[in-house]
C-alpha cells in the first residue's frame, strides 16, 4: 500500500521512526526528499504547525495496530 503512494511512505516512516519524525518536524522538505517525496508548501506548513503532543498521541495510536478482531466470516 505504502509503496504506491509517497505520502503514505513518508507518513508511515514518520510514525514508526522517532529520529525521522524529529527530522521531519525540523526540516520537512529535506526529510521528505530523503524518501523521494516532494512536499507542497501547504504540506510543509501543515507539518510545521502540528502540535507535538497531538503528534505523539497519533504515533501511539498508529503503533497500536497489532491485529484485527472479528475477522471471522461465519
Amino acid at each position, binding site marked *: 500500500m505504502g509503496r504506491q503512494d509517497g*505520502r*503514505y511512505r513518508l*507518513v*508511515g516512516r514518520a510514525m*514508526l521512526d522517532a529520529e525521522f519524525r524529529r527530522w521531519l518536524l525540523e526540516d520537512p522538505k529535506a526529510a521528505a526528499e530523503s524518501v523521494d517525496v516532494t512536499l507542497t508548501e501547504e504540506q510543509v506548513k*501543515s507539518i510545521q504547525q502540528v502540535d507535538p503532543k497531538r503528534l505523539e498521541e497519533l504515533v501511539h495510536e498508529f503503533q497500536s*495496530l497489532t*491485529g484485527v478482531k472479528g*475477522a471471522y*466470516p461465519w
Partner: protein
Amino acid sequence: MPLRRYTKGRIAVKQWSLLSDPEVLAVRANCYAALERFPPPLADAGRRVLDRICSPNWTLEWYLPRWLGYAFGLQPEVSHALVLSNVFGLAYIRLQDDLMDGEVDQTSWKTTTLLASVFYHQAILLYTQFFDTKSPFWDYLEQFMAQWRRATLSSNEPPTTDFRSFEEEDFLRLAERGAPLKICCVGACLLAGREELIPTLTSAVDHLLVGAVLFDHARDWADDLAAGRYNTFVAYATSQPQVRHQREANRLSVLEEIYLGDAARPYFDLIRKHIRVAMEKARAVDCPDLNQYLLLFEGQVITYGERLADEARARLRAAAEQLLG
C-alpha cells in the same frame, strides 16, 4: 522464555457447535463418567479441564475422528470411541502445557500430575480395545508422541534456521506440537482397513497444523513479543534475534511490514499454501468435512489478511490527513 502452547489458537468454526452438538455432548458425558471412577479431587479437576477444552479453539480435536469415521463408514460407536480417546489425549497435553508453563501452583501440582496420567491412560485404554500389541497403530502412536515430546522440549528454543530460509522440514517442525492429532487419523484408517491412506492423511494434517501455527503467530505476534516467545510472524518481518534487547526494534519491524511493506501478504499466502497442500491431500482421502473445514480455514486467513491491510491503509490515510493536511 515461556512456552508457546500447543496450537492454542486453532481456528474456531461456529457451524460446528461444541455446546449443542448431541454427539459432542455424548462424548463429554462419557468423559465425565470415566472420571467418576476416580477420587473427587481428581474427578473435579478433570471436569474443569474437560470444560476448558470444550471450546471452539479445539474444534478439530472434537470432530476430526468423527469426520473420518463418516468418510470411512466406521460404526458410530467406533467413531465415538476415537473422539473420546482424542479428547482424553488433548486433556493430557493441555495439562502437560500447564505444568511446563509453571501455571500449576504447589497445592495443585500433585493433582495435576496424577490427572495427566489418568487422561493419558484413558486415551490409551480406548485404543487397546481396537488394536492388539502387534498392530502398527502403536508404532505410529510412539512416532507422533515422540514428535510432540521433541517439539515440546525444544519449544523454548527459537529455530536454528532463519525463518526466511525455512525449508519444508522446518515448516513441518512447527506442526510437531500438534502431532498427537494424527493418532486418531491412523486409528480411523486402520479400523477402516485403509492403511494405505495413512501417509496422505497424516501429511494433510501436518500441513493443516503448519497453517494453524503460522496463523496463530500472525494473530498473537504482539503478545508473543511482549512475553519473549519466538514468533514466526515477527521472524518473517525481521531476521533480528527475538531477544529482550531487540524487542522494540522487532516490534517496529513488524509494524513497518504491515504499514510500509505489503501488509504481510506473502506471509498470509504462505499460510494458504500449506492449507492448499492439506486440501489436495485431504481430497485423496475423500473426507468432505475435513475439506470443508480447510476451505473455511483458508477463508478465515484471507479475510484476516485483507482486514489487516484495510486497517493499516485506513490508519495511514488518517495519519497522512493529520500530518499533511
